[in-house]
């Protein structure tokens, strides 16, 4: 039902050690944000997109769709950064006078918005590499490795499982409502949606109680003990990640010389 999740489970990278995958993505995110130069953003965007499409075998059409999701925020946010103000109209285009200041796009703000857009796209592509190759269960495993409080890891695991039954319930209710002429008109949208939400709440609260009874009958005492799948750790993967990171650093330190 959630296509990103489905892709993560069927990914060729599924059996790779999750800590290595997370390490690659976390290091890329950190480098993009810390170095904050266009050449690094472009390198990460290109390499992550290539990895997603060629190595992780996600169809480019689906990947492009995913990249479009944050587009609204990206465009609005970058537009807000591109528009700047000044006490005089010089260097602004189109210089509009409002509220005691001149507003418009200047050279500096245009470049800032451009760099920001590239940085966001680079970070989003890196995040997608993680989301499309690493199921949440594997991330919970890494969280346990990192000694993140067990309340968080237990809840993450439980919420993840619940999400799918909840979504299924919501979808069933939605279909039932649609087939009985729900969501007609403005008022109908509100009444149908609120009926859906309150029924979703009740149905799943009952399910949660039943689940608790079931766990209690099996000796539940507040923490969930699960068997972890063994992951194969290959030194080659670690080497590949370090080569990738060091080449990004090389680009940063030596690439700028020729670009400028």
């Amino acid at each position, binding site marked *: 039902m959630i*296509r*990103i*999740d489905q892709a993560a489970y069927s990914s060729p990278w599924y059996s790779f050690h999750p800590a290595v995958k997370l390490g690659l993505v976390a290091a890329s*995110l950190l480098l993009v*944000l810390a170095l904050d130069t266009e050449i690094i953003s472009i390198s990460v965007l290109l390499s992550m997109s290539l990895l997603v499409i060629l190595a992780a075998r996600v169809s480019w059409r689906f990947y492009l769709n*995913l990249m*479009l*999701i*944050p587009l*609204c*925020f990206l465009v609005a*946010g970058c*537009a807000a950064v591109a*528009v*700047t*103000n*000044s*006490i005089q109209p010089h260097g602004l285009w189109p210089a509009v006078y409002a*509220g005691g*200041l001149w507003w418009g796009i200047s050279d*500096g*703000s245009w470049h800032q918005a451009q760099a920001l857009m590239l*940085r*966001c796209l680079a*970070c*989003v592509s890196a*995040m*997608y590499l*993680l*989301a499309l190759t690493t199921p*949440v269960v594997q*991330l919970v495993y890494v969280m346990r490795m990192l000694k993140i409080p067990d*309340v*968080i890891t*237990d*809840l*993450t695991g439980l*919420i993840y499982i*619940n*999400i799918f*039954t*909840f*979504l299924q319930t*919501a979808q069933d209710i939605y279909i039932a409502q649609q087939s009985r002429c729900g969501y007609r008109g403005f008022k109908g949208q*509100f009444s149908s*949606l609120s*009926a859906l*939400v309150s029924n979703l*709440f*009740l149905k*799943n*609260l009952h399910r*949660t109680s039943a*689940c*608790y009874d079931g*766990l*209690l009958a099996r000796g*539940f*005492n*507040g923490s969930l003990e699960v068997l972890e799948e063994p992951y194969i750790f290959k030194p080659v993967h670690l080497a590949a990640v370090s080569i990738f990171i060091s080449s990004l650093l090389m680009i940063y330190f030596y690439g700028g010389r020729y670009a400028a």
Partner: protein
Amino acid sequence: MTLSFGMHIMEGFLPLGWAVAWFGLMLPFLYLSIVRARRLIADNPRALLLLAFAGAFTFVLSALKLPSVTGSCSHPTGMALGAILFGPTAMVLIGLIVLFFQALLLAHGGLTTIGANVVSMAVVGPFVAYGLYALLKKTRLPHWVAVLSGAAVGSLATYVVTALQLALAFSGGAEGFYAAFIKFSGIFAVTQVPIAIVEGILTVLVLDLLWAYNRNEVESLKDLRTGGEQA
């Protein structure tokens, strides 16, 4: 896949310094929330499942579409409803996990901006919503007024804090912080103000249905709200 116009700050939008700063600001609230969750679970293991229920419920709400007002596709944050049902302290921990899933499964928000998003959506939003709701409930105003204003103002507070976060991060150069804040809040007001009102109305309708037919079930969540003191 649909375009979404939520107020989640997207991945990579905040510079490293601000991303770390907001993450740091989130930690004390998260600590309080975890300490309380641990105590609740130690008292009664059922609390773990109720918290998981609250989290999944909030996540699924954010995946639903709101009645469209502005033509853009928007979704409820569910944080106000969550704050009234489960209490604002529980919402910090729940909000963190929900935002984590929204980033990974729905591509709303991001991993590096999760601190900033938790502060605006899971700390300020729920606490303002619940605070105002609790305050108005004590007056002689009808109950729905308390719920509506709590949910709508909570949603607006989230939006104002997000605009503040963006303005703080991007207020360099000639323009001051104030001008940047006007700019960001102006751009997002187009969608966020109608959404706040729609979310307020929806919260009233949902709670009405829940209280009218299933008061006992809602009352069974009382421990999560009060921290178990009255249990």
